[in-house]
């Protein structure tokens, strides 16, 4: 980023630009790299817990046949503004999985720009939990530039109060990306009528032999399920917690991250 984004930037249309302008410009993005050599496996965990502006550009490379599992928890202080960009290159026959729990700060944005080699695979399990006036977003671009790559993205958003949770997911399939298999499942749960959830899937396909599935829903807790639980003796707070935990369970996060999300939910109840 060299200039402050505006609403006209499609990728930033739901962002908290006021919060970003207040910290802007506090210097260039911090550069960092994560590299998995060909044929090797890495499991890494990152915790982003800043107080002001956290703005990293992380270059991730997974060599041919390599495997990466990267867990990211964005748990910034209430004042924090986070604008992380991970540029990820997954080489031929390599695999990458990202688990993201985006829950902290005033404005928290985690963007991924992923390029997939031949027969590479990519998975994203994302959970956004927001309350108060938070604006939290996950923005992904998946570039299927070679044949036979697969991508699976599952994102669950839970927002309360006046918080905004957004997922913008672009899948681009180049002419060479035949036999691409890409899927997105995006669901948001509004715990309050004043909260906002945005889901914006976007497909750009230049190959003719591809499978690209996407589904997005925004809703409230199922009133019938709540009554069923009540009729069995489960009080409203516990019933809501149980249903909300089941909802975010879809993202398939590692247990420690799931437990952290559950704590957030229990605190909200």
């Amino acid at each position, binding site marked *: 980023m060299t200039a402050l984004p505006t609403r006209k930037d499609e990728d930033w249309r739901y962002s908290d630009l006021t919060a970003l302008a207040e910290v802007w410009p506090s210097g260039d993005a911090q550069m960092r790299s994560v590299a998995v050599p060909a044929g090797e496996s890495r499991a890494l965990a990152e915790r982003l817990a800043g107080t002001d502006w956290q703005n990293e550009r992380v270059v991730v490379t997974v060599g041919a046949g390599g495997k990466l599992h990267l867990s990211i928890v964005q748990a910034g202080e209430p004042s924090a503004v986070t604008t992380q960009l991970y540029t990820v290159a997954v080489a031929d026959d390599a695999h990458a999985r990202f688990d993201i729990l985006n829950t902290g700060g005033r404005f928290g944005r985690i963007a991924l720009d992923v390029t997939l080699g031949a027969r590479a695979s990519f998975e994203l399990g994302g959970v956004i939990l927001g309350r108060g006036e938070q604006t939290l977003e996950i923005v992904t671009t998946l570039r299927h530039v070679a044949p036979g790559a697969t991508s699976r993205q599952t994102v669950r958003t839970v927002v309360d109060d006046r918080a905004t949770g957004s997922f913008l997911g672009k899948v681009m399939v180049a002419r060479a990306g035949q036999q691409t298999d890409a899927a997105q499942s995006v669901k948001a749960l509004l715990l309050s009528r004043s909260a906002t959830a945005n889901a914006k899937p976007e497909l750009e396909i230049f190959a003719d032999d591809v499978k690209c599935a996407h589904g997005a829903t925004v809703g409230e807790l199922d009133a019938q399920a709540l009554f069923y639980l009540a009729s069995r003796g489960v*009080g409203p707070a516990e019933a809501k917690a149980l249903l909300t935990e089941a909802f975010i369970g879809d993202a398939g996060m590692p247990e420690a991250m799931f437990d952290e999300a559950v704590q957030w939910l229990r605190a909200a109840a």
Partner: protein
Amino acid sequence: MLEITDLHATIGGKTILNGLTLGVGAGEVHAIMGPNGAGKSTLSYVLSGRAGYEVTGGGVTFEGRDLLALDAHERAAAGLFLGLQYPVEIPGVSNLTFLRTALNAQRRARGEAEASGAEFLKLVRTEADGFGLSMDMLKRAVNVGFSGGEKKRNEMVQMAVLAPKLAVLDETDSGLDIDALRVVADGINRGRSPQRSTLLITHYQRLLDYVVPDFIHVLVGGRIVRSGGPELAHELERDGYVSIAA
């Protein structure tokens, strides 16, 4: 045990229950029969405390307490169980988690000790066996992928584990094949005791071949128009609701 007095209830401004009076004593099995639209399901929802039903007159006491003053989950803890006509599917929550959460929530509300994992599993295993549901099925999400019969068996397992003082079974027999019907009937009969009263809501007489009630009531137009013993079921089967109500 349960005293319903001159109960009036509306949904969306429309009167459904119109002066219903009914008393159920401890250990008794009562059947409520009636045509579609008579208010049978409304009665079960009003008793169990579902939102959207407004009581506009009359009252209900349960063991001397004002039932209508309690929230739905409090009624369950007080000993009321509703067997649903269409049991709800809950993706992502296993039957075991659902049932254990329910059992322990009720026990906490009554000031009793929660069931340990081992105690709970033993209890569930016994009841699941009795109703022909495998523990594997109970590990799956609540009612997801269950057939109509399996959902009703699951309701019976829940009832047996939660051991209510009053079971209100809303069309528990609907959509069941003969084997499932026998299993359900068997569950009701096994639960019969001085400690459990049952209100069977049905519009077919068939279930009553297997569960012989102490009393039968005919519900038409939101009120009981006729009450009698088990023989009333056969009269209804023969003559229909219209002639009985006349």
